[in-house]
């Protein structure tokens, strides 16, 4: 190895903490945290149109691949990548706008997609079932967590993924 090929030794730098100098020491008034949390809870933004936009993206991809999934040129990894983005957006934003259950179910689907290496007929059925569930929640404006019944529904969806992992020997 020549000198020019020798890896550069890592240098550690401790930048000055300018931020602390500006804001001082302490915490936050708990009343402000409560006020901020109440602001999230009472935010009047209608999330449904944003959610439907993302759900439509997933539906379009599913419709597209319905006929190509069995062809040789079908690229499962690419499909997973395309579906993952709208699912992540639903997971991220649902709970910010009172749709905790949308976040929960989108999270189940997101975790499922991130554990996959291929997209087959069974994958299609699972993504389709989750998407239909998400759509029904939005169309019926089922905000909140869904209580006990919502929990049971999430459990069923987790169960479907578990069965898939077992069938295809996927370690998660």
């Amino acid at each position, binding site marked *: 190895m020549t000198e020019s090929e020798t890896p550069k030794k890592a240098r550690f730098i401790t930048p000055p903490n300018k931020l602390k100098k500006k*804001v001082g020491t302490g915490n936050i008034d708990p009343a402000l945290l409560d006020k901020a949390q109440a602001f999230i809870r009472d935010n009047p933004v209608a999330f449904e149109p944003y959610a439907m936009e993302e759900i439509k993206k997933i539906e379009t991809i599913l419709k597209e691949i319905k006929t190509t999934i069995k062809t040789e040129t079908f690229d499962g990894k690419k499909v997973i990548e395309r579906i993952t983005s709208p699912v992540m*957006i639903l997971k991220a934003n649902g709970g910010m706008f009172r749709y905790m259950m949308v976040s929960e179910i989108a999270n189940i689907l997101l975790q499922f997609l991130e554990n996959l290496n291929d997209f087959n007929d069974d994958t299609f059925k699972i993504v389709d079932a989750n998407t239909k569930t998400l759509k029904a929640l939005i169309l019926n404006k089922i905000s909140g967590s869904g209580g006990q019944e919502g929990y*049971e529904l999430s459990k069923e969806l987790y169960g479907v993924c578990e069965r898939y992992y077992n069938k295809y020997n996927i370690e998660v």
Partner: protein
Amino acid sequence: MTYDFSKASILIVEDMNPMLTLTRSLLGIFGFKNIYTAQNGERGFDLFIEKKPDIVLTDWLMEPVNGVELVHKIRNDKRSPDPYVPVILMTGYSHKLRVEEARDNGITEFLVKPFTAKDLFTRISQVIEKPRQFVEAQNFFGPDRRRKRAKDYQGPEKREEDTVDAHRDERKFEILQKLRESVKKT
């Protein structure tokens, strides 16, 4: 004693307008007075150069420049006025590989969406109280990646904040039951 955020400045980069407004309002409630906003990484970087904020809070998925690319620019671009600025990445991703990808591009903290007001404050407090040491190596410049990872989002915890209990509403209850029955057949 409480923090005085009025003298600090923060840049929010987020493409979903209601989320941008929500985050801005939360920071306003915390006491921030100097809040700058942009709707994509490209505009965010321009604003970063112009305003030199003390903290950057950015979303991940945006076009034409996403949040991770923005951080890479903040850390490595010659025009960057402060490559050491703390950057908090807000995202729905929580998978190990995604977190590592973000860290490899120079993220300081990871804020998993959906988040509570407390989660947001905790991340801000973390960059104040526990600033990361920076590493300059052959292929990396950014905060030391060896600190423990942010905890993954745990859905059920969010139930504590629930505002609508579906089992008290017959119609919603029935819909959820039907959905569960159809999932069983999958």
